[in-house]
C-alpha cells in the first residue's frame, strides 16, 4: 500500500512544479505552440460551421420548407454535414490538440518533429473539407458515422498515421519514467482508432461484407469511435485537469486503473445494442446488451474517482472556467453513460430505439461530456500557449451558461419527445395514423431549435473570445488568470 501511495503521488501531475522545474514545463508548452494553435484554430472554425449546419437541420425538422429548394442543403445532407463537421472537424481537431499537448507535458518531452504534425493537420483538414463538400454535393455513403466519400479516406488515413507515429516517438523519448493514467487513455485511443477505421472502411466500402454483417461492422465502428476514441481522450483530459486545477492528487490510483481496463474490455462489445430487434444473430445482441450493462463498472468507478477528488473543493467552481467546464463534462459522462446502459435493456430499447431519444443521448455524450471537456481544456491550454490571458471573463461566462443551459434543454426536449414518440409508435390502437405521431413530436423538435439557438450564442461568445485572444497584444506586466470572479482567499494553482 505504501508503495502504491508513492507511485500515486509521483504520477500526480499537480506535483510537477516540485519535480519538474517550471522552466521545463514552459519550454515544453512553447514547443507545442505552433501545431497546437493550428489544430485549435481549425477546430474552432469547424465548430462554427458545424453549428450552422446543426441549426439548418434542426429548423428543417419542424419546418421542412425552410431552404427547401436547395438540393445541397436538403435535410439528409445537411444533417450529415453537421455530424461529420462536428465529429471529424471540431472534435477530432480539438482532441488531437489536447492529446498531444498533454502527451508532451506528461512525457516531459519537448515536442519534436512539429513538421509531422503540421503535415498531418493539413492532410486531415483538407480531407475533412473535401469530405463535407462531397456529402453536400451528394456523394455521401449513407453509412452512419462514415459518410465521407471513399476518395477522402487515404488523406485522412495518412494524417492519422503521422499523428500516431508522432505520439509514439514523443512517448518513447520522454523523460518521465511513470505513465500517468491520462497517457494510458491517449495511447490506447491513438492505437484503437486506426484499427476501427480501417476495418470499417474495408468491410463496408472497399470490399463490402455481405448482408447485415455490414450493420454489425457499422455499429462496432460507430459506437467504438465514441467509446474508444472520444471517451478516452475526454477522460484523459478530466484526469489531468481536475487534479491540476485543484492542486491535489487524484483520489485513487487503483480506481483509475480499474476504470481504464474495465472500459477497454467492456465498451468495445457494447455497440451492437444499436441493432436490438434487427436482422442479426441474437447471440451478438445478447453479448452487446451484457457488455452495455457491464459498462456501469467503469463509469461508476471513474465517477467515484472524480467525485472524491472534487470533494472539499466545490467552491473552486465559482472561480475557474476550466474546472467548471470539466466538472460539467465529467458529471455528464456519468449520467449519459448510465443512460446508455439503460438503453440496452430490451424492453426500454423497444420504446426508445428509432426515436429522437437516441439523438438526445448522442448529444449528451458528444456535447455535454466531450465538447464541454474540450472547452475546459482549451481555456487552460490557450493562455499557456499564447502567454496571455483570456480577454473577457464575461464572454467565458456567457459561453458556459448558454451552452450548459442550451444542452440541458436540448437533451430534456428530445428525451421527453422521444419517449412519447416511442410509446406512440408501439401503440397502434391509439395511434393508428402515423402522422399523429409526427404531430406529437413537433413541439419538442421546435424546443430543440430554441436550445440550438442558445448553444449558438455560446459558441459565438467562445469564438469571439478566442479570436480576440489571438490578436490582442500581450500585456507588458505579468497578469492574473482570467477567472469568473477574483478569489479573495483562495489561490488557484496554475
Amino acid at each position, binding site marked *: 500500500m505504501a508503495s502504491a501511495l508513492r507511485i500515486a503521488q509521483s504520477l500526480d501531475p499537480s506535483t510537477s512544479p516540485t519535480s519538474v522545474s517550471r522552466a521545463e514545463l514552459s519550454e515544453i508548452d512553447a514547443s507545442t505552440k505552433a501545431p497546437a494553435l493550428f489544430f485549435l484554430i481549425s477546430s474552432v472554425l469547424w465548430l462554427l460551421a458545424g453549428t450552422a449546419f446543426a441549426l439548418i437541420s434542426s429548423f428543417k425538422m419542424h419546418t*421542412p420548407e425552410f431552404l*427547401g*429548394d436547395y438540393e445541397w442543403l*436538403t*435535410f*439528409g*445532407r445537411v444533417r*450529415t454535414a453537421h455530424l461529420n463537421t462536428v465529429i471529424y472537424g471540431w472534435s477530432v481537431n480539438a482532441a488531437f490538440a489536447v492529446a498531444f499537448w498533454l502527451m508532451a507535458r506528461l512525457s516531459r518531452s519537448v515536442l519534436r518533429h512539429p513538421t509531422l504534425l503540421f503535415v498531418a493537420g493539413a492532410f486531415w483538414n483538407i480531407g475533412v473539407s473535401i469530405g463535407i463538400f462531397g456529402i453536400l454535393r*451528394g456523394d455521401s*455513403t*449513407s*453509412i*452512419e458515422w462514415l459518410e465521407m466519400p471513399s476518395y477522402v479516406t487515404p488523406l485522412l488515413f495518412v494524417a492519422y498515421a503521422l499523428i500516431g507515429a508522432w505520439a509514439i516517438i514523443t512517448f518513447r523519448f520522454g523523460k518521465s*519514467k511513470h*505513465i500517468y493514467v491520462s497517457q*494510458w487513455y491517449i*495511447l*490506447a485511443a491513438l*492505437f484503437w482508432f486506426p*484499427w476501427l477505421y480501417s*476495418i470499417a472502411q474495408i468491410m463496408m466500402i472497399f470490399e463490402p*461484407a*455481405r*448482408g*447485415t454483417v*455490414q*450493420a*454489425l*461492422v457499422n455499429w*462496432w465502428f460507430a459506437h*467504438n469511435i465514441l467509446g*474508444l476514441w472520444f471517451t478516452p481522450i475526454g477522460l484523459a483530459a478530466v484526469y489531468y485537469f481536475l487534479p491540476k486545477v485543484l492542486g491535489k492528487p487524484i483520489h485513487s490510483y487503483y480506481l483509475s486503473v480499474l476504470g481504464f*481496463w474495465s472500459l*477497454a*474490455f467492456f465498451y*468495445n*462489445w457494447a*455497440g*451492437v445494442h444499436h441493432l436490438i*430487434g*434487427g*436482422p442479426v*444473430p441474437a447471440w*451478438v445482441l445478447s*453479448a*452487446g446488451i451484457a457488455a452495455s450493462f457491464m459498462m456501469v463498472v467503469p463509469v461508476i468507478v471513474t465517477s467515484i474517482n472524480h467525485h472524491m477528488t472534487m470533494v472539499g473543493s466545490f467552491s473552486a467552481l465559482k472561480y475557474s472556467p476550466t474546472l467548471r467546464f470539466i466538472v460539467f463534462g465529467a458529471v455528464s459522462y456519468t449520467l449519459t453513460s448510465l443512460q446508455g446502459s439503460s438503453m440496452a435493456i430490451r424492453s426500454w430499447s423497444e420504446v426508445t*430505439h*428509432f426515436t*429522437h431519444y*437516441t*439523438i438526445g443521448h448522442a448529444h449528451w455524450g458528444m456535447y455535454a461530456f466531450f465538447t464541454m471537456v474540450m472547452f475546459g481544456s482549451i481555456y487552460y491550454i490557450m493562455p499557456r500557449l499564447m502567454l496571455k490571458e483570456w480577454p473577457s471573463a464575461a464572454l467565458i461566462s456567457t459561453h458556459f451558461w448558454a451552452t450548459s443551459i442550451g444542452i440541458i434543454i436540448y437533451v430534456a426536449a428530445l428525451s421527453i419527445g422521444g419517449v412519447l414518440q416511442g410509446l406512440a*409508435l*408501439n401503440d*397502434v390502437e391509439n395511434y393508428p395514423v*402515423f*402522422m399523429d405521431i409526427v*404531430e406529437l*413530436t*413537433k413541439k419538442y*423538435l421546435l424546443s430543440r431549435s430554441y436550445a440550438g439557438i442558445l448553444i449558438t450564442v455560446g459558441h459565438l461568445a467562445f469564438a469571439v473570445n478566442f479570436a480576440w485572444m489571438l490578436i490582442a497584444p500581450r500585456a507588458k506586466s505579468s497578469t492574473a488568470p482570467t477567472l469568473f470572479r477574483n478569489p479573495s482567499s483562495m489561490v488557484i494553482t496554475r
Partner: protein
Amino acid sequence: MNRAPLIFLGVFLALAFSWTGIVLTNQVAYGNLTPIYDDAEEKIFPEATPGVAQRGQLVYQDLGCIYCHTQQVRRLGYGSDIERGWGERQSVPRDYIREKRVLLGTMRTGPDLRNIGARQADSTWHLLHLYDPQITSQGSVMPPYRFLFEMRKIVGEASPDAMNLPSSYVDGTPLPPHSVPTEGYELVPTERAKSLVAYLINLKDTYAYPETFNVFPEEEAEAEQSEAPAEEGH
C-alpha cells in the same frame, strides 16, 4: 519499471476480443449466406434487383433518406412493426444479401420502408409525395424534393411523364404558385426521381424463407404452456 509493453498488450487484446467476436465470427458464420432456389416458383430468392432500382438506391443514399427511415421489420411482439403493416414477417439476414449497401437505419421520423413497395406500389403517388409531401401526407416533416423534377416548356407534344398536380392540398389551401406549372409548361420527373421511385417500389420482402417460420418465440411459448397441463393429466 516500464509497463508500456504490458499496457499495449492489454489494449490490443481488448479490441481484438470484440473484433473477433462481433466482426470475424459473424463474417464466418453468415457472411456467405446464399439465395434460395424455390422449386415451386422456379425462381431464386431474394430476387436480383433491377438496374434502375439499383440506381435508385444510390439516389436514396445521396439524399440521406436513411436518417429518417429504417428498413427493418421487428418481430411480432417486439414493437408494433407488423401491426402497423410495415411487413408480413420479421426481417431476416437473407433479405439483405443482394444489397451492396445495407441500409437498416436507426431512426423512424418517418415510417419503415422495408416493404413500401408492397403497401404502396403506385409510382404516381410516390412522385407526388417526393415532389411535395404535403400533397399526399399533409403535416409531414419530410422535406420536399422538388429539385428531382424539372419544370420545362412544352415543345411539341406534352411528355407522357408530365405530372398531374392537384390544385389544392387536402385541407383546401391551394398549392404555392411557384410549384405549379404555368400555361405552356409541364412538370416532369428527372431520371433520378424515376429511379428512386423504382427502388422504393421494388422494396418488399414477401418471400417466406425457411428461417422466417420459426421466429415467434411468444407463440411457441404459449403453445408449450397450453400443452403442459394436458401432459400432467396423463
